């Protein structure tokens, strides 16, 4: 293929990506430094970032994001791992169960939010009270777990399928129990998949939006950074602050990715070091 042909193949995708993703992302960064009044705009520097530092709504939202992250680690990743280990054997019965556990993952989060909204709504709901100030965040995390545990189960099942049969056989001959086999053989071999799951779970906690917006659109106690920024832009027409929050959110996601990948390479290096 000629160089020119290659470039012709490449340019349409690059153009779309630049126009609709990369340039707008840069624009967000620039917009966060300006205050918009009517048709004009004033450069305000880091004003909106300094404001975020003192904004109790932002503090609450960020705290909720971090709590949600920990809860989803339990209800999505740990539960998904447990399901995968329990349904590892490829029998027909297990296959049917896997389908059942994964099926909520194809639902729209809007549907999930509305259905659980009816079930938990105060007044008319079947199980009222679960969305009150004290436990709404845990309830939302459990719903997320219901919707996504099957997704993580699928990833872990793919990882478990790569555990060599001979290793398990050897462990069995050595008299290792199920629990011991899990801790000292399967889990270390799943390391790669665990990193991927943590990456998806942690970044997903920052990207979350639909469920929070649909279930409790106007509550401060379940505000997260992504709902706060949409509110600032749509309801208060505060594009500058909204953009600053978007930049902070993006920074948190990129930092999380770097941290998980860094931890992974550090861990791998430590393992490769020869034993003295």
């Amino acid at each position, binding site marked *: 293929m000629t160089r020119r042909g*290659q470039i012709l*193949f*490449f340019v349409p*995708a*690059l153009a*779309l*990506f630049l*126009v*609709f*993703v*990369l*340039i*707008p*992302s840069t*624009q*967000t960064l620039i917009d966060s430094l300006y205050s918009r009044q009517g048709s004009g705009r004033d450069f305000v520097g880091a004003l909106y970032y300094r404001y975020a530092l003192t904004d109790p709504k932002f503090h609450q939202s960020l705290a909720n994001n971090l709590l949600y992250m920990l809860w989803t680690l339990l209800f999505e990743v740990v539960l998904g791992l447990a399901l995968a280990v*329990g349904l590892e054997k490829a029998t027909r*019965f297990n296959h*049917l*169960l896997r*389908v*059942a556990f994964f*099926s*909520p*993952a*194809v*639902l*729209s*989060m*809007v*549907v*999930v939010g*509305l*259905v*659980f909204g*009816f*079930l938990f709504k105060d007044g*008319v709901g*079947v199980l009222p009270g679960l969305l009150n100030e004290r436990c709404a965040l845990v309830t939302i995390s459990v719903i997320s777990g*219901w919707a996504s545990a*099957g*997704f993580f189960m*699928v*990833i872990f099942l*793919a990882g478990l399928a790569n555990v060599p049969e001979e290793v398990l056989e050897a462990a069995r001959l050595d008299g290792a129990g199920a629990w011991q086999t899990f801790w000292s053989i399967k889990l270390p071999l799943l390391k790669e998949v665990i990193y*991927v799951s943590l990456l*998806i779970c942690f*970044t997903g906690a920052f*990207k979350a*939006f*639909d469920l929070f917006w649909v279930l409790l659109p106007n509550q401060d106690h379940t505000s997260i950074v*992504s709902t706060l*920024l*949409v509110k600032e*832009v749509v309801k208060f027409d505060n*594009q500058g602050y909204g953009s600053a929050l*978007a930049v902070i*959110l*993006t920074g948190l*996601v990129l930092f999380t990715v770097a941290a998980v990948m860094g931890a992974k390479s550090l861990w791998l290096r430590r393992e490769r070091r020869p034993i003295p």
Partner: protein
Amino acid sequence: MNRTLNGLKSPLKRLAWLLLALLFLYPMLWMASSSFKSSNLEIFGHPFAVPHQISFANYQKAIRQGNMGSYFINSFWVTGLSAMAVVCLGAWAGFALSKRRFPLRKIWLGLFFVGMILPVQSYLIPLMGLLESLGIHDSLWALILPYTAQNLPVAIILFAAFFASLPGELEEAAKLDGVGTGRFYFSILLPVARPAVATIVVIACLNTWNEFLMAMLFIVDPAMKTLPVGMIAFEQSHNTDYPALLAGLSLISLPMLIVYVIFNRQVIRGVIAGAVK
């Protein structure tokens, strides 16, 4: 003694798993069964009972009053066109980037990797203004183009890896036989890439069919809404008619569940590839 215990343990274990699976399926079953009930009173008076009689009146109401038909068609076009564009453009670019000597190859791949990580929120706000100045706001293009751009990075990276894994002799042989690049690409490469195409289609469809945030912000015209946003509109206008609402929710969940059950293997493979990439 031990043997009998083990013999008992297995059916008990199975029963426990079965109950857990039912617990997972229950919210969906509740949604479906309530959608057949005749009134709010029947739903909330006897929430866990089966409906007195099966009637599709609620479904008719959801389709007629809820504009479900038009939302469905919009979602269909948006998802279909964007998935097609992701596959075509992604495969072209991935093919180009699979060539070792493509100019600045590493930089482009790094850029698409970053694009894959970026959350929607990082480009969401300026997109509203951009779509307006392009004159395509409140049309289906306001969703098709951003969705395509959003899913391209994954597609390009997966396709580049896939094409790079193919033996180089394939193209050499085609060249010796006098097959042009275009024909080589369309009649040799794409058929070989069918598994990769299936994976990308699954990823793109799952990501776009259920997308809510952009669809909510970019579309105001009720005639242009997609299913998730349309559902919210329906909820706001009919928030006292629960049976009709649940019928609508069941209706929009059905296509994805059917696709998943039929194409189970492809969906699972797509999910894994999209996650692990």
